[in-house]
Each structure stands twice: as C-alpha cells, then as structure tokens.
C-alpha cells in the first residue's frame, strides 16, 4: 500500500555511513548555508546534541549510526 495513506509526521532520516552534522545539512537542507543547516539540525535534535555535550557520545562524531535525525522542527499539534 502506498505510503501516501499515512498522515504527515515530523520528517526524519537515518544516517548514512560517515554522516555527520555537515553532510546531513548539505544533503537534507540544501537551501541553507552549511553553518545554518548544522545549527538548525542541532536545535531539532537535542537527543543527539545534548548527549554529545554530556560526553556520552562516540568520540569525534556526535551522531551514532543508529540515531534518528529530524530534518524539520516539531509539527504543531492540536
């Protein structure tokens, strides 16, 4: 059955190999500069960004290969 039947939910991606904030920003948010894209992604993905800040992450790359990365802000509900 087509995916079109599903209602709209907040858009997210699963990282490709070697993805980091910059590569995701360049691919998913091409209309923004890389710097703006990265800071947007970080603000929409505190579950990843805060973990890295607390040094509970993965070394050089904040993003774990299994993370869900939102590519837009939360939808308005209600």
């Amino acid at each position, binding site marked *: 059955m087509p995916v079109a039947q599903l*209602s709209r939910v907040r858009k997210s991606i699963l990282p490709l190999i070697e993805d980091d904030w910059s590569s995701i920003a360049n691919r998913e948010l091409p209309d923004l500069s890389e710097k703006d894209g990265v800071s947007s992604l970080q603000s929409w993905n505190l*579950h990843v960004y805060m973990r890295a800040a607390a040094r509970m992450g993965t070394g050089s790359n904040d993003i774990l*290969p299994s993370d869900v990365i939102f590519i837009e802000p939360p939808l308005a509900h209600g």
Partner: protein
Amino acid sequence: MYDLVIRNGKVVDGTGAPAYDADIAVKGNRIVKIGKVTEGAREEVDATGKVVSPGFIDPHTHFDAQLLWDGCAKPALAHGVTTIVPGNCSLSLAPLKAKHRMKLVGMFNQIEEMPLKAFKEGVVWDWETFSEYITRIRKGLAINVAPLVGHSVIRLWVMNEAATERTATDAEIAEMQGVLRECLDAGAAGLSTSYVDMDEKLLPVPSRYADAREVEALASVLGEYGRVLQIVPEFYDSDLTIARLDQLAELSLKYNIPTTFSPLFMNADNVDAVNRVMARVDEQFARGARVWPQVQTRPIDISFSFSVPSLLFMRFPSWYRIMRFGTPEEIIAFFSDADNRKKLIPEVAPLQGLWPTLVLRHVETDANQKYVGKTLKEIAELRNTTPIEAMMDLSVEEGLEAHFLSAGMGHNDDAKVAGLLNHPHVHIGASDGGAHILSFSTYGDTGYLFSHFVRDLNLMTVELAVKKITSDTAAIWGIPDRGLLKEGMIADIAVFDLSTIARGEEKFVNDVPGDGHRYVRDSHGVDTVIVGGGIAWSEAEGYQDVRGEVLPGVREMAAA
C-alpha cells in the same frame, strides 16, 4: 483413563468468547477433551468456582541469568505464567565468547540491575554458542522459554571491541546474518535491539552503533523464519517513538515479520503524545504492518537504597556517578561531607514533589525502626531537618541499607491505562521480569491485571484480559499450539480464583546467588499452574513437575 482432569471450572478459553462451564481432560501433554468428562484420571484438579484459562505468556523479560540456577523463573510460574520471553533489549547471554563474558555481565548489571555477584557466584560459564546456552537451560526447565537473541551480543561476537566503535563492514554484516541464522535454528524466537541503553561505562551499547542497513540485513534473516524483532525506542519522546515505529513498519511489511516495541507509558503529562503514537500504530496496522506496542499493567513504583545505582537518580549526574562508581565506603564518606551536600541537594530539586510520598520501607538498625513506614517528610519533621538531609543521614547511619519506596510515579491513571490495555493493537507485556531486582518487583503483573482492571475497577472483561495475555501473545510471537484451551492444543493451563487473584505485597528477599537480594511479589488466588500437561506449581504443593520447553523450538521440530 486420562492423565489429568480439571473439573467443574469456568473455562475462559483465550479466544475472547464468553466463559462456560466445562471439564478439561489431558493425555500426555495435550488437551484431548473439553466438556463433560466422566472418565477418571491419574490426577484431578477441582476447579469449582475458579477460572480455567490458558497459561499466561510474558513477552518481555530478562530471566536469562536466573534460568541458569532456577528453571521455574520463580515466582513467575506461581503467578500463572507458563511461557517467558527472555533476551529483550539487545541483551542475551548467548552467543558469547569467553573473552566477552565480563563485558556482558557489566552491561546486564548496568541496564537490567542484575548484581555482579550473582553472575560470579551463580553461574558456571560452560557455553558460548546459542545452541549450547539452550542445551544448558533446558535441563530443569519447568517454565517454557521463547528466547530472543540480543543484537548487541551478536555484534560483540562478530566485531569484538569494534562493536562499540563503528558501523559494520559488508563482510561483518554478512557474518552477523550467519550468526543470527544459527541462533534461530537453535530455537531463538527472534532478535532484540535497543536505541537507548548505555553500557557499564555509560557509553551506548553495541546495537546503537549499527546503521539502518545492518538492522535491515538482520530483519531480512528474521523474514526467512517469520520471527520477531523487538526494540527499545527513544520512549521519552513521541516524535522519536513514531520515527522508530515507522522504521519497524517498513521492515515488517518488507520482510513479513512481527515487530514490537516497549515501553509505552501513559502519564498525566503525556496523554496527547501517547494518543499520537497509538494513532500512528493504527495507521501502520491498516497498511498491513505489524508493530505492536507493549504496555505494562502495573504503575511505576521505584524502590531504592544507595547501596546500588538507582534508575531514579539517573538524571542527576553527581548522584548517579557516585552511586555507579563509588564503593559503599566512598558513598558514605561522600554523603557525610557538608561541601558535597551543598552540591548534591540543589541537583535533585526536581524530585521535590516526591518527599511527601517517599516512604522509608526498611532499615537494619533498631534505633531507626521507629521511622519505617513513615514518609521522608514526616521523618524530617521528627528529626528536625529537611527530607533530603534525612534521606542522606539515614543512609549513612544504615551503612546504605536504608530502603525507600516511591510509589505511583507514573502510568497510574487507571482509566487511561485501561483504555490502552483494551486497545486492539496494544500487546500487554513489558513486565521486565527478572530485571531491576533491586528497584521494584517485576512479578505479578498478570495478577494485577485481573485484580485491579478486571475485578475492582471493572474496566476490562476477564475474557479479553485472558485473550490479551495468552492467544494474542502466542499469535504475535508465532508460538504454535499454545495460548488457547482447545482440543489438540498443548496443556499449558492456569487455574485461578477471580475473586481473590492479586499480586502480593512487594517484599525484599534473600534468594539470589552470592547472598543477593531482590524485590518479589507472591501470587494470591492462583490455584494450579500446568505446563505441558504436568502440574508445575500448585498453591497446596508448591513447585512440582518439570516439563518446560524451548519455544518455538529448533527449526526441524517446528517444521515436523
């Protein structure tokens, strides 16, 4: 002459159909007749005034270690549970190379709160492969076991240290697929993975280093066998939970596999969020995907002492770090120091609302017995101090063996929880049986379902409650020949009194290897529990027959 007859019971057969009066006759391990049974039997159970139902199936447990020293998974069996699913949340005890044993024990200790000493003193490590583990637990098994294999463990087997460093290569993914096939051939019921858990060093568990293509490759192997994928999603955020359930739905559709995720809690502050998650679940089911949220029946109660790290303090770094990494002497010294207290106290300000309800439940010294049963707020008033200082003072005085109980921390709005439990796409489970043994009792959720939601509140029928924890579970998990009372089915049966069934009071007992303790609840109102046609437990005689099996069974058996 039958082997066993259960007479005069009210049969609630697991289909959801109305209860009816009948006898049930058993020959060998199968039900051979339901109706009026005139012939005699070697053994008889008088079920007058009682419900006779299929044995309950508990789909989310961590009995992996306990099964090595206790084939009854006590006290689960006594509660009427005849089948358990261990190996959830990406962790199982096999396949496991000898060199990784202590790493895995560390993860079990951190994530499931299983004491290190129990592993050291209760476990003879004589297996590596999944098949060897199954052979090992099969001896003395009184309860049926449908074991999952943990993704983190498979990753560790194939990638060693790199399991917590990077994505897998194509060759490593192919090797993981081969290992998963071996486990499924040896009787694994499916695969479990986790997107939230942290290991003993507070770093992400191996499964969290897997990219989507690795998970898909493993799901494709599950598809060859039609077996289950279980995950722990980022349950604290509904957008993340929805993204995960969408991911599961695609895998379910593409590989024709059942999937399940847990936990899903209904709290006062997340009703809209849970409703959104359930609306998405319904949409995915409408597409044909099988994405079962697991919901527990019991409210969240947490017990803690400062002798072990507690979930309750995970959010408070200074508290959690000293609990996790300090020796008892270091924790006592830390709590006694006035400067440390200045740092510790403001950090737990968010717990403010707890003090009026947090109860002291156990102390070792005579001097403090007078406070047992009182709230921290009351104790603080008696001792002329603040609740939080009283908590630290008592812990120091008791050598950290002051135990506190925080009851009703969530998932306790009865009407809303009942709405979820009744939902056709909600899978009742998520007991976590055998885990978190120093934080709360994970036994008796089935008794609580019947006593609280069916009998006392009348928010669910007994027929639906039985169906949800028997035939629904067997259908979701692909467990053949169980979950229904029907001629020809295997005789896994619970006999209980609906007017008295309940989970007992939570108590702290000393029955874990290595002189360890745990919180348990006895069963009330359960009369007889039958596994494979034999009486495995009865209220009168305790634990008896040992006829548990590994389900759904090794592949050759399932096919035969």
